[in-house]
Each structure stands twice: as C-alpha cells, then as structure tokens.
C-alpha cells in the first residue's frame, strides 16, 4: 500500500494517534491553526481547552503522573510557548514524561522578530530533556516518534517539538517509524549483578540499616518490587515527598516522610544508620539538610538510580547501581532468595528498639481546637472521608506539607505535587489531569488561598469538561509557608505575606457554575467533606473554603542549612 500524502498538521495528529494519545491539553493561536484545523476533523483523542497555557502543561503533567502515560500539550508560538515554560520546568524537575508541541512562525520569518516569534527551543533548552525545531515536513513523523521515545525512556522528562507554521501546511507521505534507534542515546535498564550482590552483602551485615525511596520508585512503577524486597529484608523505610505512596504508609516498617518536614524518627534514622539504601531518590537539599552535617556520621551508601548523573552528585556513594529501579529491585529480590540463610534478622533488634524510642516523640501530634479549624484536622478528615483512596493534588506551601504528612498514601501515583520546582498554581490543573485520567475516582485538590489564585481561571475548564474535583482550600489569609519562615528567621516581620482583598471563594465558585462552601467551625469539617464527596455531588466541582488557624506552623522542621537531626519540633514552639 502506498503511503498517504497528507499535510504536516495531519502528520502531527496521526503521530499522536499512533502513540495512543487520549488527551491533548492545549490552547490555539496563529502558529498552530493548521494543527487545530486537523484536530477539528479527528476523533481519536480529546482536546481539552484550558484557560492558560501553563495549566495545559500542568494538566498534561498530572495526567502522566497519575496514569503513567506520556502527557501531551499543544501551544502556539511566542506567548503560548512562554506561558508553557513554568509547566515544562515543573515537569522537568520531577522527571515527568511529556511531549509539548509548540507552533513557530513560518521558517522564512524565523530570526526576523516576526509577530509572536520567540526562540522557543532556546528558552526551553535548560528545562527539557530534549527539544527539536522541525524544518522539513518529512521529518515530522520521525521527530514525533523520537520525542515520545525520549520522553518515556531512561530518566523520563519533557520533550518539546517546535513546528513552524509553513511546515504544517506542506504535504508529504506519512510513514510512522515502528522503532527508533539513537546512537547517542542508549539508556541502561538492567543493573550490574556484581554491584547488586555487593549491596545485599552490605545490607545483610548492617546493624542499623535504613531504606530511603523517592520519586523514581513511583515513576518507575517499582512499588511492588520495592515492597517485596523491603518485606524480605524487614528493614525500616522512609519516603521522600516525591516518593510517597511508593511504599504503603500503613506498614509498620514505614517511618513516614523524611526531610525538611519529615518525621522525627525518619530523620533520626536517616542520620544515624550504618547502611543506607537509596532507591530512586537524589539526596536533594530538602531531604538531607546540610550535606556536611549529613556526612559527619559515617555510613555506607548504596544508591540505585536510572540516571548516572544522580549518583555521587551531592553525596559520595559507596555502591552505585545504575539501572531501572524496578528491574534492579526484582533482581535483588531473586539474589536475596539465593543467600537469605545468611540473613540474621536479630542483627537489627536494638536498632528497631532505638527507632521505637524515637517514634515515642509523637512528632506529628498537634493541639486540636474546638473553636478554630486546624489544617491538620482537615487533612485527617479528608483521609477518613475518602477512605484514604483519593488522588490528592496539592499546591505549594504549608498545606502541601500537611497533605503529605496527614494523608497516608497506600498506593503510588495517588499523591501529585510539584516537589522539585515547587510551583504554586499546579494544584487545580493537576486535579484536572487526574480526573480526566480517572473519571470514576475521587480527586481532591489541597490548596491555599494564595496558590489557588495562580490558576483559578481553570474553574472554567472544569465546568466545560465536567470535572468534579473537590477543592480543599486551607485559607489562613497568609502565604503561610512564607509567614512561617518570616516568623522563625526574620523576627516576625511579615513582609508582603498576608493575603488581603481575598475574593469570596463561595461566590467565585458559584459564578463559574460550581458549588461553594465556607467552613468556619471545626465541627463542620466532617459534615462538609462528607457532603462534598457524597454521591449526590458526584458530578459537581465543590470548592470548600476552610477558614483555618492563621498562626499554625508545619512541624517538625529542619531549618535551612541545618542538619537532619537538628529539627524544630512542635513542642519547642510553645
């Protein structure tokens, strides 16, 4: 059969179809009109029209984080592309597989400061895994194939494809390659057996072992493999903010999240262990605190990661294992079974005693109140009402930390937040992406009155596409996290961190055609959440404005530049 001759725009659409794309999140404009015209005539994927390009990229990003598929966004040249940059950088920092298609001015106009021209490939270069500017219609299909392959293989990440308008109008044969071979890109998947054996030997002889897993376990679908090996070893484990859900929070071996707002027991065990097993994590500054303090205790470190550049970047590693985390953990489990008779589980008895002692601090306790709403209580009630099984997206700030701390996750891909870039505004578009990926499941967006206003326009998108997400706005009338730092480190000088002139969120929600609720008393928390998640409101977006304690802080806290074991606890704050 002779290949069909079609336009570049049609090739873009057919390529997306070949990649089994279900949703494209986008916003039209001059440079992509040919592509939109081709979208008009197809039924293979649904186009979700957002209200701002930043939200298109965030929503596609969350679609990917929740479903594991590649997220796709489509934006026009110039301002469309620059609006998308925050979303792209956010996805890049958290290694989310995405393909972003941007329109460009016609090839003959490039470099002439044409209307809506910007150097999109130049602007996005530092925040994409790779990008392409297509200058020949014959290259669209193969470039699209490469983009999807690069985005989803190795350490995943966003890939941008910039297509000048004239190229989308030209015609050529449509031949979509089945496979792509790049001599310069050959990601490893299998870990080195010798290294895995070495790691096991260290682990089995450890007196004070600790496992620390991160976002790589979630992205790499390695949660089951992780549970198998951790259950076999019987060692304590902590998750990073990005790794939550990678190991079930209800398991007794789970010590909670670690890091700047991690639990006392997780941070102490991390600091004090003699063998540390890091899986799909990257020793981020928010996780290990001051690296010099961290390294002041001797310990052996094993590190499994798909990205060789993550290994020995911030902390020197003793046993590096480069490979796909899932494959490495599965191999490790098999090898463990070969020599598990060598494993004396009594090795760690006194270590487990010590951890129990640390846990007695009960570092997550907070003083509840009968007259003013405590944010922690809202999250705990959300957990109860959703039976711990909702997708929870968050924005950035105190509410994000409380959601991470007080909503224990049992499954991977349920906790969706911007850990790396810390982008305020992601919460609502993230909820949209999850809800589209899982229309039947509950999606809660935990946000703050400052963050939600950064993408509030998406309430309109939610109306158009019937996305019944539940928004839990922890409204403390402050940029709470900023206020907390100002309280601790800037002598209570609350420079520009109050939120004045707030809208009436109930009316705002209603004006977009949604349901609004204002909740001011602790006794109303549970009834309100129950109603919002009731079958009666299953089809509706509900905006819950919880008026919370203005002075509440997130504890424990490792102050910036301090060591992991130098936490401020709630009890110190009296």
């Amino acid at each position, binding site marked *: 059969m002779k290949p069909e001759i079609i336009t570049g725009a049609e090739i873009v659409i057919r390529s997306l179809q070949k990649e089994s794309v279900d949703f494209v999140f986008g916003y039209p404009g001059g440079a992509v009109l040919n592509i939109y015209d081709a979208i008009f005539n197809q039924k293979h994927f649904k186009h979700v029209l957002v209200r701002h390009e930043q939200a298109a990229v965030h929503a596609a990003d969350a679609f990917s984080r929740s479903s594991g598929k590649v997220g796709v966004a489509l934006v026009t040249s110039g301002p469309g592309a620059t609006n998308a940059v925050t979303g792209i950088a956010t996805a890049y920092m958290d290694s989310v597989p995405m393909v972003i298609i941007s329109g460009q001015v016609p090839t003959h106009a490039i470099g002439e400061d044409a209307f809506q021209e910007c150097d999109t*490939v*130049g602007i996005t*270069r*530092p925040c994409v*895994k*790779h990008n392409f*500017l297509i200058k020949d219609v014959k290259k669209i299909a193969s470039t699209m194939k490469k983009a999807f392959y*690069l985005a989803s293989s190795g350490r995943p990440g966003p890939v941008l494809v910039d297509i000048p308008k004239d190229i989308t109008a030209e015609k050529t044969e449509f031949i979509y390659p089945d496979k792509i071979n*790049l*001599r*310069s*890109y050959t990601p490893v998947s299998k870990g080195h057996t010798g290294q895995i054996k070495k790691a096991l030997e260290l682990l089995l002889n450890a007196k004070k072992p600790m496992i620390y897993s991160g976002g790589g376990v979630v992205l790499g679908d390695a949660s089951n493999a992780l549970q198998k090996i951790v259950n076999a070893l019987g060692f304590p484990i902590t998750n990073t903010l990005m790794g939550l859900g990678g190991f079930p929070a209800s398991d007794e071996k789970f010590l909670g999240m670690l890091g700047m707002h991690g639990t006392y027991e997780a941070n102490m065990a991390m600091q004090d262990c003699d063998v540390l097993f890091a899986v799909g994590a990257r020793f981020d500054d928010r996780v290990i605190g001051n690296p010099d303090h961290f390294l002041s205790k001797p310990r052996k470190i094993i590190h499994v990661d798909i*990205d*060789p*550049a993550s*290994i*020995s*970047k911030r902390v*020197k590693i003793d046993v590096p294992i480069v490979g796909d985390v899932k494959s490495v953990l599965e191999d490790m489990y098999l090898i463990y079974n070969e020599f598990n008779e060598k494993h004396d589980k009594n090795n760690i008895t006194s270590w487990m005693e010590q951890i129990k002692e640390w846990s007695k601090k009960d570092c997550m306790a907070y003083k509840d109140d009968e007259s003013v709403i405590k944010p922690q209580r809202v999250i705990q009630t959300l957990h109860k009402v959703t039976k711990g099984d909702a997708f929870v997206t968050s924005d950035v700030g105190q509410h994000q930390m409380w959601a991470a701390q007080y909503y224990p996750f049992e499954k991977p891909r349920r906790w969706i937040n911007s850990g790396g870039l810390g982008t305020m505004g992601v919460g609502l578009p993230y909820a949209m992406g999850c809800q589209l990926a899982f229309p039947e499941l509950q999606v809660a967006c935990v946000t703050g009155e400052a963050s939600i206003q950064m993408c509030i326009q998406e309430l309109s998108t939610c109306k158009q596409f019937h996305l019944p997400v539940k928004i839990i706005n922890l409204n403390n009338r402050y940029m709470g996290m900023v206020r907390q730092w100002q309280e601790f480190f800037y002598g209570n000088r609350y420079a520009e961190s109050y939120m004045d002139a707030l809208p009436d969120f109930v009316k705002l929600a209603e004006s977009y055609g949604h349901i609004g609720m204002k909740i001011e008393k602790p006794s109303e928390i549970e009834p309100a959440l129950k109603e919002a998640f009731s079958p009666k409101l299953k089809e509706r977006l509900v905006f819950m404005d919880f008026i919370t304690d203005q002075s509440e802080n997130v504890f424990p806290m490792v102050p910036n530049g301090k060591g992991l074991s130098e936490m401020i606890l709630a009890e110190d704050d009296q």
Partner: protein
Amino acid sequence: MENESGALSRVSGLFSARGYNIESLTVAPTEDATLSRMTIVTSGSDSVIEQIIKQLNKLIDVVRVLDLNDGKHIERELMLVKVKATNKYRDEMKRISDIFRARIIDVSDNTFTIELTGSASKLDAYLDSLDSDSIIETVRTGASGIGRGDRILKVQ
C-alpha cells in the same frame, strides 16, 4: 556529538547553567559529516569532573565523552600573533620565532604576523618571551586533543 544545529549551545548552556568552568572549547565536523568533535578544556575537582562527564553524556546529542587526561594524549593549539616589527624588533622577532618554531606568515613594513602551534603552555611561553610592548594582537583557537597511539575515540 551529532552534527545538529543547536548541539553546541546545549553543551555551552550546560556549563553555564551548572556553573562549570570552560577554559576553551573547539568544535568542527569530523571525517563522518554527521558527527562533530569537540575538545573542551575545563577544570575542577575530581567529583566536579565526574559530574561534567556524566552531565555531558546525558545530553541527547552527545555520542561519546572521553577524558583525555585519563591516558596519554596530545594537545595542540594554534595561535596567530601580530607583533611590531620595526627596525629595532625585526631581527629579535625572527630569532625568537625560530627558537619556538613559529612561522612568520605575513609581513608588512611595521608588523609580522606569526603562526605558532603547540600546547597552551608553549604558546604562553612564547608570548612571555616577547617584549610585551611589541605584541599588537593575539588570537588563539583553544586546544584540540587526541589520544596517543591506539587510544581512539570513534563511533562504531
């Protein structure tokens, strides 16, 4: 690396974004027109150099990275120097150039233009040996390097 437009800016962007030093960088296509070869001179602690190599390898357009310092290698840089060549200097210039095996490639009433190839330190030594008042202009290419003997960097 792949001889693609933008590949050079990916490399230089990486160095500036991550705060690595670049002392010099040379690049040109190879005998295989789809590939170009770059020599970068940089400095840093062992762990920084290790990161630089890993980060370079991570760039999609980069096919292979080799640290020439890991083995025997040859390094050459080309320099063109324009010097004053008035009566007083003329013989002196010739003499020093002979010692360094530099070649005078252009002559005018008042100037010589001299070409010199060698390691960076040889070029430095040559400049040091000239009277600094006599130097009008210099241009250097930065080093290109290649392994000695059987040590080769090639893509199969």
